[in-house]
């Protein structure tokens, strides 16, 4: 399973990079920071759970014991097979017949762009992402059984819980916008990860820009 996924990704990366190059040449106004051509390849690889609980011996004797299930219902396996697709930023061609779940994994389809980026300390949607978000909203409107999770992230600067709230605010902005474009509220859940799951770990402007993002992940796609 995983191996297949990896092979799939390996094939996807050059293909996608090529598309990005082409589209970057053809579109007039691009956000440089986000059109970097890298894919994250993360998302569904992360399994939930697998937590261990330990204790402090009264006198400092160590005993890390596994208490098994930690109040959670799904240790070991993720609830959903949510995947983040390609990064946003470049514009693709799309007409209504292209708006299908299959398009989510077609690098030539705008729907494959599932990451959008934010300004420092802001949760407002940049104008260049409106088309992408509209397209995702249309997809959700067209397929009422489809479910998306909007995962917000922040860069590493500032305090962690503020960043969690800020990243949730970013996800909420995306949800709100897509809601006005036909997606139903019940189709979208939001989650703020703060600065905990960076895509890149550099401590500079370029890295920070890549980490200030919302990833649109679809259940089963």
């Amino acid at each position, binding site marked *: 399973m995983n191996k297949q996924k990896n092979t799939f990704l390996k094939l996807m990366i050059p293909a996608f990079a090529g598309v990005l190059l082409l589209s970057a040449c053809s579109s007039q106004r691009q956000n440089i920071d986000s059109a970097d051509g890298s894919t994250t390849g993360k998302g569904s690889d992360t399994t939930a759970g697998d937590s261990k609980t330990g204790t402090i011996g009264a006198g400092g004797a160590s005993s890390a014991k596994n208490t098994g299930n930690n109040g959670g219902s799904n240790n070991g396996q993720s609830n959903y097979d949510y995947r983040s697709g390609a990064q946003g930023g470049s514009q693709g061609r799309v007409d209504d017949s292209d708006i299908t779940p299959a398009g989510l994994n077609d690098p030539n389809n705008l729907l494959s762009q599932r990451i959008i980026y934010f300004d420092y300390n802001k949760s407002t949607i940049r104008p260049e992402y409106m088309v992408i978000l509209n397209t995702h909203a249309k997809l959700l409107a067209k397929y009422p059984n489809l479910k998306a999770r909007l995962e917000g992230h922040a860069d590493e600067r500032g305090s962690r819980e503020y960043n*969690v709230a800020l990243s949730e605010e970013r996800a909420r902005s995306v949800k709100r916008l897509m809601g006005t474009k036909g997606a139903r509220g019940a189709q979208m859940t939001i989650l703020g990860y703060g600065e905990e799951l960076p895509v890149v770990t550099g401590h500079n402007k370029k890295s920070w820009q890549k980490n200030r993002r919302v990833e649109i992940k679809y259940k089963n796609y």
Partner: protein
Amino acid sequence: MNFTTHLLTVNKIIKPFILFVIAIMLSSTTYAELELTISKNTDAGIPIAIMPISGGASGIIEADLKRSGRLNIVSASKITGLSPFGGSIQSDKYKDITDYIVRGKQGADGSLEIELISTSDNASSRYSISKNTNPRRVAHKAADEIYEKITRIKGAFDTRLAYVVVTNKTSANRKFRLYVSDSDGHAPQVVLTSRLPIISPAWSPNGQEIAYVSFENESSAIYTQNIFTGQKRLISSREGLNGAPAWSPNGAYLAMSLSINGNSEIYTMNIKTGQLKQLTHSKAIDTEPSWASANSIIFTSDRGGAPQIYRIPASGGSAKRITFDGRYNSGADAANNKMAFITRRGRGFNVAISSIGGSDKSVLSNGRLDESPSISPNGAMVAYITMRDGQNTLAVVSDTGRAKQFLTSPAGDVREPAWSPYLR
């Protein structure tokens, strides 16, 4: 007689074996031992000499007092001809060398007798510290007594730190581990391991439980966990954000941030009944509550356009802004009428300390991306995270800014220290 001899022989054979087993057990955990890398100290501070105490307590006491930034350690080798513990004192001959001399004696059972001598008036104070299953705590308690006698500030060396260590932070094998160690970084122990983020550890006022936020089910949830029994309890996994838990001083309430009503707001929860009370009602982000007293909470809000620190009665009411200096102030942690917080200066984020009202601000750190300050229960030291050689490192600085220590974990990034309350 014969039986005793026999026992002794067995002891001789078994003891090395037991020691060997203990050594193996220790070596398997030491990978996560925090390493003291650099210690910056100025010579400012009240001079004090700690005479050697067999058993090693003197070294621990010395290191503690050094970290305080208020005392300056004078080499014990400069004190010659001093009678041993319990002997007569003619301390006036040392008064040009040091203000205070400490001498002590370890009891056979692990207890400790300490004598603090003031060289200016030949006065001495004696303290008996009873044994503890963690022998280092005995020395920390002694340091607490000495520190309080000299500075009139209650000592906080006999405390603990909780912190998170992240390994493989960009790979799928990423692991988040919640640790608890002594306040000087010794004796670290893992209390929780997860593949998804663990953030915002916070101590209960009795020092037995830690509240934290876990993302282990791909949503945020607040848990509490008893560090001695491992017993875990789900506090909140409401829709949206469940974050920033903070225990009230009496242990009956947890303040937290929840977004059930549309965006992040501050709530208090009665831990026994689960009853929630919403304290803030703004369209902005309100988070990171910390109890400034039994009836007052400080928190971060960007209602003014950028993150600043506000204060609100714990029973609800109107919030008042308390930080005005700079465009970004957040993440405040309060203790003993002081607060440590993050402040943005130019391009950098640093740790500052001030009164709860916001006055007497002084910046304690000079890194580029300093974060997660946690203040010791006496308000005299701050633990925080700073970047050193590309790795997140735990730093401990005195409120005077004079003494600073860096503790790195060879295992990975250290994050979010939380200073325990006074231990019992």
